[in-house]
């Protein structure tokens, strides 16, 4: 069975989805989804161990040799991503049942889990595959299920948000498809590894240039990179809270992964960064993104929206690290993907708990919540500290690596800008702290209680992970560094 791990990673949640549709009882479906997601998590741990020990794993689907058939190719980079996605998915699912009670009509719960598993499948599939067209197929699975999941939000705006995302997402996916088509035309292959070997021959042609442009713009749409981020805040705000927690922690990471995969592995470092002024463009957009999104976050009164803008800003940090195109820079980006998943997972799950008790997350309604729901609010505060980058949290580790990478290149001014960006995070996190801890509750007699255990356990698992990986960085830094080095082809 060990040899089949790469495919099991994707096939377990995939097959679980239609089976869920056949199980009639909601409770059963929920448990079944947890098991499926948990198994996927277990598989991803085994895969990561295997990759770290013995290098790239290639799995030929249908038994056909690579460029003819489809290949699953697991290296350190995607093993790392698989771990993040399936891990977060499993933790979030534990809180799903309680949260859904208040947010989604009872008769749609089963559909919710089916779509959730499909979305998980899509993301795992995108990451695991070594075939460019297969990426597109799984991108469709994850996007379609994402549109439906977001549209399930209980406000009417959810449908509009989902529609906006649908249009932008479809444009993104079409661009990626056009890019893949053009690449196929120039090389005659769809396998990524094969592409990377055949593209340099035709690198000078305008068709390859156009292909590159389409793929990058398409991926950046999915990534919600500034200025293509407009769909994200509404989508995150109006989606059911569980969906927000899941997507905020994973979906954009998948897009960042695609960006790294296409620029480094498929088109190759020399093409992406020397042929094209990608570095300058991404650095500028990343920085502007950090400032614009952080500033917008400060002015939001809906806390979900506030953190949605903060997510866009965090993507900015990943992009800056990426644009440095050095091993340390890339390590910082990968680390931040891991760490940001932990922070935002914890924060949005805690917000889900607040919604469960309070009904909404308008800043005004959070007054005095620090006393009424101490554990939940503490989780948001720790998550917030992590966003700012306070030592002993994971946020500090990734900011530290990013600054090191910048200083290594002698880019002091940008390092200073990054620190200034963190100051903006201090402001928006402080607004929440102020309201929750230093203001009297709106209604003194209100009987808002602490969130139920089904929320607290997953929230605190993530919070503790936030602190644990802030102190013991062997796993996250170790893997991120190894992945970054292998992308640059540095021998280990």
């Amino acid at each position: 069975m060990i040899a089949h791990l790469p495919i099991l990673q994707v096939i377990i949640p995939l097959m679980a989805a239609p089976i869920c549709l056949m199980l009639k009882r909601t409770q059963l479906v929920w448990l079944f989804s947890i098991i499926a997601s948990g198994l996927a998590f277990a598989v991803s741990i085994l895969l990561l161990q295997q990759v770290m020990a013995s290098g790239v794993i290639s799995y030929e689907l249908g038994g056909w040799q690579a460029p003819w058939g489809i290949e699953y190719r697991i290296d350190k980079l995607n093993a790392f991503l698989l771990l993040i996605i399936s891990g977060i998915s499993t933790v979030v699912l534990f809180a799903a049942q309680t949260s859904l009670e208040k947010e989604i009509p009872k008769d749609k719960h089963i559909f919710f889990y089916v779509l959730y598993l499909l979305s998980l499948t899509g993301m795992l599939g995108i990451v695991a595959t070594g075939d460019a067209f297969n990426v597109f197929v799984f991108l469709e699975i994850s996007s379609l299920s994402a549109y439906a999941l977001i549209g399930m939000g209980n406000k009417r705006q959810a449908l509009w948000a989902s529609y906006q995302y649908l249009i932008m997402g479809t444009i993104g996916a079409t661009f990626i498809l056009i890019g893949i088509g053009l690449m196929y035309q120039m090389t005659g292959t769809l396998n990524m590894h094969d592409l990377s070997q055949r593209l340099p021959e035709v690198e000078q042609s305008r068709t390859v240039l156009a292909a590159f442009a389409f793929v990058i713009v398409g991926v950046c749409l999915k990534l919600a990179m500034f200025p293509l981020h407009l769909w994200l805040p509404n989508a995150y705000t109006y989606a059911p809270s569980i969906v927000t927690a899941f997507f905020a922690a994973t979906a954009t990471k998948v897009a960042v992964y695609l960006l790294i995969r296409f620029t480094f592995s498929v088109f190759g470092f020399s093409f992406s960064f020397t042929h094209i002024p990608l570095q300058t463009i991404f650095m500028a957009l990343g920085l502007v993104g950090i400032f614009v999104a952080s500033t917008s976050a400060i002015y939001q009164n809906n806390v979900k929206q506030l953190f949605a803008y903060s997510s866009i800003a965090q993507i900015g940090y990943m992009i800056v690290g990426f644009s440095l195109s050095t091993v340390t820079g890339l390590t910082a980006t990968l680390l931040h993907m891991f760490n940001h998943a932990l922070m935002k997972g914890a924060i949005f799950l805690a917000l889900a708990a607040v919604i469960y008790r309070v009904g909404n997350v308008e800043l005004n309604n959070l007054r005095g919540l620090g006393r009424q729901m101490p554990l939940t609010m503490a989780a948001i505060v720790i998550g917030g500290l992590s966003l700012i980058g306070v030592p002993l949290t994971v946020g500090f580790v990734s900011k530290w690596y990013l600054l090191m990478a910048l200083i290594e290149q002698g880019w002091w001014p940008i390092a200073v800008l990054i620190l200034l960006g963190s100051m903006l995070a201090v402001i928006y996190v402080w607004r929440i702290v102020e309201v929750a801890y230093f203001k009297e509750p709106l209604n003194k007699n209100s009987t808002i209680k602490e969130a139920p255990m089904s929320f607290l356990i997953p929230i605190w698992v993530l919070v503790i992970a936030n602190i644990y990986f802030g102190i013991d960085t062997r796993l996250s830094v170790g893997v991120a560094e190894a992945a970054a080095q292998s992308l640059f082809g540095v021998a280990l």
Partner: protein
Amino acid sequence: MVIVAFAIIRMKDLFAVVMLLGIYGLISASFFIVMDAVDVAFTEAAVGAGISTLLMLVVIAMTGRKEKANRHKPFSALFIVLVTGGLLIYGTLDMPHIGAVDAPIHKHVAPRYINDSMAEIGVPNIVTSVLASYRAFDTFGEVVVIFTAGIGVLTLLSVARRKESEEEISSINDSMHEQHLVIRIVAKMLIPFIFLFALYVQFHGDFGPGGGFQAGVIFAAATILYAMLFGLSTARKVINQTFIQLIAAIGVLLYGSVGIVSLMSGGNFFDYNVLASDPIAGQHLGILLIEWGVGCTVASVMIIIFFNFAGRQELHQQKERVQNQEPS
């Protein structure tokens, strides 16, 4: 094609636009035939010209057929479209010519498909061997995409309906459908043949153009035709919602379990060679089964989508009627 596309953009009458979209689909299908891509043409004809037109008509019945006047001119959108178009044309400049023998696509992967697929898979239609065996996992992904779409429509559109309203609707339907007597009789004669043709396409995919996708769509189209002419509630009596959901799920499971069985019998996922003692027989069995999976899911998802859209429409009409009655 260009003329039709412009007409679609400029026209305000949505009914005409949908019809033109159907024509657009048909022209693209003919275009694919000229390019010798018969399987693609078949799919385009079934999906682009067929079922999507039907679904859009249902939507129009709900939303009204006139586009709202739109005064603001989206110049920034035009700019982006021009840039994208420009980039596409720029990209074509270095492309190999159509049909050039030395184009990379003809030299790398394709020759093996063309030369060896008969020996390796034993299916005369190369497209089928690529879709169902060499790249079976992509096709599986596509089936899951369709399944996802069906579930998505179900979650967002399905409405809990009350029993009484359904009876009321069916009585109205009956009176309404009395008018289309000729169409109903012709359809009654045609529908069995359409079903038969769907089955033919399903089984004949190995040898000629066609396969599960097209067969599923044709099958669904026949069902939808029946539902349109004889009323949704009549069609619901034949095929109920839970049953059709089950079929959609079973389709995906059937496809996937072929992979799992091959995995259990010692091959890789979707390695049909291990399904039977003789590799060619294994390939045949595998392809046959997965095509059934595809057909089941595609047909049932199309029907699900139609039922839910049309169900919404009935609800909509009902509300309007209630509103009209109130003032009097």
